[in-house]
């Protein structure tokens, strides 16, 4: 187990370096002069442009820029935002808690709704309940998050007046965005829980448990669900990445001041150090969450020996 964990961590390091490299390459890959693009083609005095190029280190050869970039990032320096003049790390740190809050809230919603719908669908397979749950899952898969969010605002804020349209950062204002993102994400969880449950329910130990005379509730919750959770944990980990990026859209809908909003702003202003920083941070957290999930997987599933 310890050996597996160590190897799994070891395989993550080259991936993180590759991500770092791709993020670094974003700027050289931009067609045209990056500094000119930052000025939106508006003419600036040549000194300003030259100064900017020098400041950003763009007048050095690419390999030197790369080594410098690696060194900076490893020391925790992601550069300076062009528009706000603030360190990128600080900009992201200010917004990250809001996005994390939204992602965790949605994760809670998606797990709760997805588990209940998936279990019900599996237990009542081929009944109206199963059909309803799968229609719900299909609808969730096809739902544009921004429209769903606007519908939620229209219904709960405009018509019913339960929530204010502008979030104030309170826990209450988290409800609508988390529901929007969580309900959409729950469709994937529901489908997966259903198929995992069906697979487990067909196995011998379930028949044994029933034959022993255990109550159905205990068979389902203790014997079946416990085993069905193993693949579900993986998907929930992958979901987290989806939630982080889904937050980009939902934040725009609900005026939620998180990383997503920061990213959309930065993209509009072509603030490259900030964009690169955000992509790096989100991709890295995604990889780390998946690493965590894989390690958890090994703990959860005693059948697999990772020798």
């Amino acid at each position, binding site marked *: 187990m310890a050996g597996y964990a160590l190897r799994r961590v070891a395989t993550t390091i*080259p*991936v993180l370096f*590759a*991500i770092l490299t*791709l*993020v670094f390459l*974003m700027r050289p*890959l*931009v*067609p045209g002069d990056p500094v000119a*693009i930052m000025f939106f083609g508006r003419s600036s005095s040549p000194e300003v442009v030259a100064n900017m190029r020098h400041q950003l280190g763009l007048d050095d050869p690419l390999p030197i820029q790369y080594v410098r970039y690696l060194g900076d990032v490893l020391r925790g320096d992601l550069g300076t935002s062009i528009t706000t003049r603030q360190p990128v790390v600080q900009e992201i740190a200010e917004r990250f808690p809001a996005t994390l809050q939204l992602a965790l809230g949605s994760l809670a919603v998606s797990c709760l709704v997805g588990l209940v719908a998936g279990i019900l669908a599996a237990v009542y*397979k*081929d009944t109206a309940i199963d059909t309803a749950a799968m229609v719900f899952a*299909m*609808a969730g*898969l*096809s*739902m*544009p*998050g*921004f*429209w*769903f969010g*606007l*519908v939620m*605002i*229209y219904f709960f804020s*405009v018509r019913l007046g339960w929530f204010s349209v502008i979030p104030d950062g309170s826990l209450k204002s988290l409800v609508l965005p988390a529901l929007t993102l969580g309900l959409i994400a729950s469709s994937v969880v529901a489908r997966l829980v259903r*198929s995992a449950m*069906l*697979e487990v*329910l*067909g196995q011998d130990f379930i028949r044994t448990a029933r034959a022993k005379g255990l109550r159905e509730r205990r068979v389902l919750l203790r014997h079946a669900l416990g085993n069905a959770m193993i693949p579900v944990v993986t998907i929930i980990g992958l979901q987290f*990445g*989806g939630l*982080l*990026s*889904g937050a*980009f*859209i939902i934040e*725009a809908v609900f005026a939620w001041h998180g990383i997503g909003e920061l*990213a*959309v702003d930065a*993209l*509009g202003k*072509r603030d*490259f150090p900030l*964009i690169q920083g955000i*992509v790096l941070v*989100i*991709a890295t957290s*995604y*990889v780390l969450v998946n690493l965590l999930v894989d390690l958890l997987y090994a703990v959860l599933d005693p059948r697999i020996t990772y020798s």
Partner: protein
Amino acid sequence: MSAALTAPALLPARAKTRTGFRPFLAALFSRRQAQLGGAVVLVLVLAAIFAPLISPYDPFELRVGPLKEPPTRAHPFGTDDLGRDLFSRIVYGSRITLQIGTISVAVAVGLGVLVGIVAGFYGGWVDALLMRFTDVMLAFPGFLLALAIVAILGPGLNNVMIAVGLGSFPGFARVVRGSVLTVREMEYVTAGRVLGATPPHIMRRAILPNVLAPIIVLASLEFPAAVLTAAALSFIGLGAQPPSPEWGALLVDARTYIRTAPHLINVPGAAIFVVVLAFNLLGNTLRDVLDPRLRHR
């Protein structure tokens, strides 16, 4: 697995033994999901082709009716904040929707198939190199990858289509490579080699036709996903720009009028939802008929 669960998995085997396009279509459209999805897709395609005939007004003409009017007989989907006919705009928008799905998927399939076949066929260091690269791309959440590529290329509908395609090619590369690994061991591939066929010839004539099923299935499921991603990118201002009648872009200005004219949000939103749902239903059935191995993807 219960017997009921394996039953649908047997169908494709039957569909495959009766080769030909007609039995395949029969198997596909004997299912209600596919009928429903197919009908909507047909309407969408017809709307896109005959847009000038169907739409009662020029989609860009201002003040063809009152401003922000809810649906009426003259304007079945109502009018927008500039008095344009929303029905005509939705009809013309269907062209963009089809274009987005087609081009994004074409980019993803083209690149994915190329990388997947080359990696699977040659194996060794070529395979290792290409697949490690693919893995790194997969390490990015899909939407973030598309966003990063738009950041590089710059905003706009064309770039969004390329970005969405590039963002989803790793999935294709993985699936194609997996299939190629089995196909390249087949005797007809060895036969091709013995007869002196060049590797590109073998890849094109012997391998590609035999890995088509998973590609088609994945492409049909990627299409609706691409439409959703592109609409979302337009919604945050990176894709189609106003006055384009792209459905995601229609929602941008509409947000301001959420209190006074909710139909401006609901009509394009519902259009995206229904079309994506239809493509998903169609893709799901296609997967069941063509390639049950992809069931759990």
